[in-house]
């Protein structure tokens, strides 16, 4: 039995170039691993037939880039032509996209092979992936624990070494938080760095697509592939195309880092604070200056997020009406009845709650009272981040307040899913890049992550910083323990 998927991407690339490994061998191994451990429930739809066909078509072709022939998983809210895309919702459980998202076209151009569509919270709304219509994925470090969310299936697929890379999406922490719970590197790039064309919209001014990987270097490789301006997304940035690996390996001595007091307040569990303190000491030993700061408004992020994300969601999800695609009731007498009943049957509880609250917040005078105010505070929050970045290279803190908790834990509290993301939401508000780096384990041996926040479009330096720290920490990050 081969174990190629435990090797690094650079090692695989060498073997592929030498012809000692073929893309088909990698694809077959990925499916073998997925089928061996169905309990993880990382995937909603597998792309087995097409993936094998694609792998065979690559045989004999020149290995022209470092990700050639590498299996990749794609979150199920990113459109894949002719491959079912459900957003983990009953309302889209029969939806077959008729075009590829820009990021998917880019993966295909570089000959990565899409293995399947990963499980997630319904329409990316949640922090545990338990709102999926297809059942929650399980954390590969301990199957009684959540993966986090909403990109929980993407996190589980990489953490369990089914695939080396996955795409996630992040509206309020949905790449970084599950990356933290599952011991991965997850990057939410600067807003606009990666095209959102073909991403099923949730909160359009917050949504970002980003890479999830086993280590920092491989994360940068995937961002190299998916970045870039796109005429199909008017918010995509005209910023220069970069090689995100170019600073990796360079020393971080002399860098200045801010640690906001709020990130070390009582909202965070003592064991996580302890690990952050250890990391701060290590950084100081490496010649990095770490200073405690206050950043205005970050403690208001959850309220802000609720208004902006739910408002935008209520508008974005109005398109699911049973007319053009997706689930539809068959016997409605009038069109209004078709909308009302289709949406009652098609959406789950979390989604319904958010659409209802969002509709309320945007209706009549409320739009002024809540939405306008939220956008003012959002601007203030962005300014307070910018002020901090005048003095510091990065802002750091814990990614999550706790480690991954029990799958069985209470689901009735409607605030819980927001509070899980309290430390990661500010980044989406300001459109900044944020990265999770694993820095150690709890007593129960569940992963703990460091959140690194950078200036807008400073991802390359974030990778330099994270990679240097990663090398110093040298953690064993395979839940199978075979590395």
């Amino acid at each position, binding site marked *: 039995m081969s174990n190629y998927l435990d090797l690094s991407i650079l090692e695989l690339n060498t073997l592929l170039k030498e012809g000692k490994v073929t893309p088909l061998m990698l694809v077959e191994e990925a499916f073998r691993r997925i089928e061996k451990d169905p309990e993880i429930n990382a995937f909603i739809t597998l792309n087995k037939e097409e993936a094998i066909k694609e792998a065979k078509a690559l045989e004999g072709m020149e290995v022209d880039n470092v990700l050639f022939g590498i299996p990749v998983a794609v979150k199920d809210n990113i459109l894949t032509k002719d491959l079912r895309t459900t957003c983990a919702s009953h309302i889209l459980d029969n939806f077959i996209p008729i075009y590829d998202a820009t990021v998917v076209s880019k993966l295909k151009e570089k000959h990565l092979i899409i293995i399947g569509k990963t499980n997630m919270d319904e329409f990316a709304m949640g922090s545990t992936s338990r709102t999926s219509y297809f059942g929650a994925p399980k954390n590969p470090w301990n199957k009684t624990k959540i993966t986090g969310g909403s990109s929980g299936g993407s996190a589980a697929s990489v953490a369990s070494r089914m695939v080396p890379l996955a795409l996630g999406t992040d509206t309020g922490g949905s790449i970084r938080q599950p990356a933290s719970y599952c011991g991965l590197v997850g990057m939410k790039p600067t807003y606009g760095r990666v095209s959102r064309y073909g991403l099923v919209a949730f909160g359009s001014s917050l949504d970002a697509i980003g890479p999830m990987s086993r280590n920092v270097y491989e994360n940068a490789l995937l961002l190299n592939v998916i970045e870039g301006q796109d005429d199909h997304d008017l918010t995509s940035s005209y910023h220069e195309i970069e090689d995100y690996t170019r600073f990796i390996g360079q020393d971080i001595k002399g860098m200045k880092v801010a640690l906001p007091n709020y990130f070390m307040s009582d909202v965070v569990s003592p064991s996580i604070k302890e690990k952050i303190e250890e990391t701060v000491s290590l950084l100081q030993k490496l010649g990095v200056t770490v200073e405690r700061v206050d950043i205005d408004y970050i403690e208001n992020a959850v*309220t802000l997020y609720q*208004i902006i994300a739910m408002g935008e969601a209520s508008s974005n999800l109005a398109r699911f009406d049973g*007319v053009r695609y997706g689930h539809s009731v068959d016997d409605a007498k009038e069109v209004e009845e078709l909308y009302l009943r289709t949406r*009652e049957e098609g959406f789950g509880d979390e989604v319904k709650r958010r659409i*209802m609250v969002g*509709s309320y917040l945007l209706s009549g005078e409320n739009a002024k009272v809540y939405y306008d105010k939220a956008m003012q505070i959002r601007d203030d929050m962005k300014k307070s981040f910018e002020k901090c970045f005048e003095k510091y290279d990065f802002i750091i803190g814990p990614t999550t307040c706790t480690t991954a908790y029990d799958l069985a834990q209470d689901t009735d509290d*409607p605030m819980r899913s*927001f509070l899980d993301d309290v430390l990661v939401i500010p980044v989406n508000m300001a459109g900044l890049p944020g990265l999770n780096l694993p820095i150690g384990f709890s007593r129960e041996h569940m992963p703990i992550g460091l959140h690194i926040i950078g200036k807008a479009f400073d991802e390359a330096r974030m990778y330099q910083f994270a990679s240097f720290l990663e090398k110093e920490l040298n953690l064993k990050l395979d839940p199978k323990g075979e590395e």
Partner: protein
Amino acid sequence: MENKLSREEVLHVARLARIQISDEKTLEKYQYQLKKLLDEIDKIKEVKNYDEDFLIAPVDHEAKPTKDETQEEITFQDVKKNAPHTKGNFIEVPVMIHE
């Protein structure tokens, strides 16, 4: 202060969201849950802003107009594949306007 919304308030909000709630138990659950969410959201009123500037989306460039050219990217046959109810070259919907 009441820790739940009234039935009518929830039904009104559901109506705005075009979502039917036909189950009494669900309706009752939403009375408490939506109230809890809205109370949290109300906290925004207490926050003092620096200034009146708005941030709608963190975009770093001016919007540029796209070329006004039509392209055949998607055909009706493509669209029809996902439509739940079709008749000939049309998507079928129930009655919209009564006489």
